């Protein structure tokens, strides 16, 4: 299970990196979003994947799931949601104001 999760995380990171390296602003934002999904899955995997244990440590229970990674992911998702929303709004505003979403034209070389 951990192996296939690792491969999936790798694929997500690859796609994210590819998208961030493209020129279109929207693709870049999608890329950051996909990378952060990859990170969330990584946190889950790093906490150890177990089947069928509640995140409670009772007297009779023998297995339990570590609940900390889930708490971390929940926080990370909320933060990522807010940042992505802000980023999207800002990129739309940039597109309206500067009239382009091509990163090549947003380089900001002097005296253009």
């Amino acid at each position, binding site marked *: 299970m951990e192996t296939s999760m690792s491969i999936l995380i790798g694929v997500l990171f690859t796609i994210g990196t590819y998208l961030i390296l493209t020129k279109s602003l929207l693709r*870049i934002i999608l890329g950051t979003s996909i990378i*952060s999904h990859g990170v969330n899955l990584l946190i889950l995997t*790093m906490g150890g994947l177990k089947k069928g244990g509640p995140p409670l440590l009772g007297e009779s229970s023998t297995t339990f799931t570590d609940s900390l990674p889930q708490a*971390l992911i929940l926080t990370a998702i909320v*933060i990522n949601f*807010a940042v992505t929303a802000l980023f999207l709004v800002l990129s739309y505003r940039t597109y309206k104001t500067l009239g382009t979403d091509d990163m090549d034209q947003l380089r900001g070389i002097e005296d253009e």
Partner: protein
Amino acid sequence: MNNLVILPIIIPLIAGLIMILIRKKILVQRIIGIFTIIVMGMVSISLMNQIKENGIQSLQAGGWEAPFGISIVADMFSAILLLTTSIVALFCFIYSFSTIGREREAHYFYPLFLFLITGVNGSFLTGDLFNLFVCFEVMLISSYVLISLGGTKLQLRESIKYILINVISSSLFLLAIAYLYAITGTLNLAHLSLRVAEVGQDGLLTTVSLLFLIVFGMKAALFLFFWLPGSYSAPPTAVAAIFAALLTKVGIYAIFRLFTLVFYHEPQITHLLIGILGAITMLLGAIGAVAYWDIKKILTYNVIVGVGFIIIGLASFTSMGMMGSIYYLIHDIIIKALIFLLGGTIIHITGTSKLKDMSGLIRNHPYLGWMFFIAALSLSGIPPLSGLLGKIFITRGTFEAELYWLGAIGLMTSLMVLYSIMKIFMNGFWGETYLSKEMEKGSMTKSMTLAIGCLTAMTIALGLGAEGIQVYVQHATDSMMNPHEYLEAVLGKNPIR
């Protein structure tokens, strides 16, 4: 247990929330803001004195004992930085009154400013790695809005890049946290320190520590500073000054915290790398500062040089170097705010940031000119101003650690810094006066003069009165070089194994 520790986070947060409710009443917002920051400063002073007498203060949030709950910890290093933060924040806040403009004031500039301070204070105080991430995000999200608030073309273009860089580095931060959690099974800094000391810092942990170095290096502009000159020249002066003074310093604080508390077992790998990165940062920053003829560019490259210089004190990993770093960190926060406010004022008066288009400002603005001169001398560490002591101690530290090349590069770059900043003074203030009083684009207002004057007085006072803060700095150095004290303060006398 000491509830005072959490106040520097709570106070600006609540004040900011109240300000959102009274959006239209600008004057009330200003008064609340000043009051809040002063209270914050007083809390940090009383924290400093408590720490001096009773050792490191901590608070376990919600009463959950250390490795399970979130700890808020204040040691002397954090308390000193908290106090410096409140001083700089106060003057940048006052400076913004007449320069930031009605529009920005009506669109939540002041609450955002306080949220930024909340994040900065939170990062200084937290004793938990994930909580550090959250506080970083609080700070960064406020900074995203502050940098783009106003929506000019330049601001929008630069804020896109700024946000992208920070989103990626935040993802890497989480990645590093996940790896560290998998290896050690804890995220509490004190508990991490204990566990890493127990199992030994093997290759895997060292690799993770280098990942953290990359993440914080990106935030602190250590070597990975390519985003900084563009981003910091976009926002209005008061915002640029607070960014230059505080945001990179939070990254530096995180590097110091991790590499003195947790990953201090393999200095020949990690600390040497930090030294090399610091040297490259200083050299490239100094070259940039010398090369440009634009005030904003020169000042932003000076921020980068400062970062490199502070970090080589850590690289030496001697108590002398550490003490120098703390002195220089305090100095750098104040002087970077001051020099950005001065540069911004020059741009405000002349209406241009190109050095070749200005000349002879000293005739109409003698006080501004001389304050700039004092700031320039202080920046490059001329006695008796505040930069000197930090430079001496850091250089001595590198020599003690037998890293002579590092100290030499540090001294060489301070000469280049002096040249770059004198270039602004000579071109801007000397020479023939083109601009008569009437032709100037803007004038100095009372709040601007007050803010700049007080910060200049601070840098002189910090230089002449260095003896007075010596006790505190020495205390901070000692507790950083002995992580044991931190562990006892957080985990109790007999740390659970």
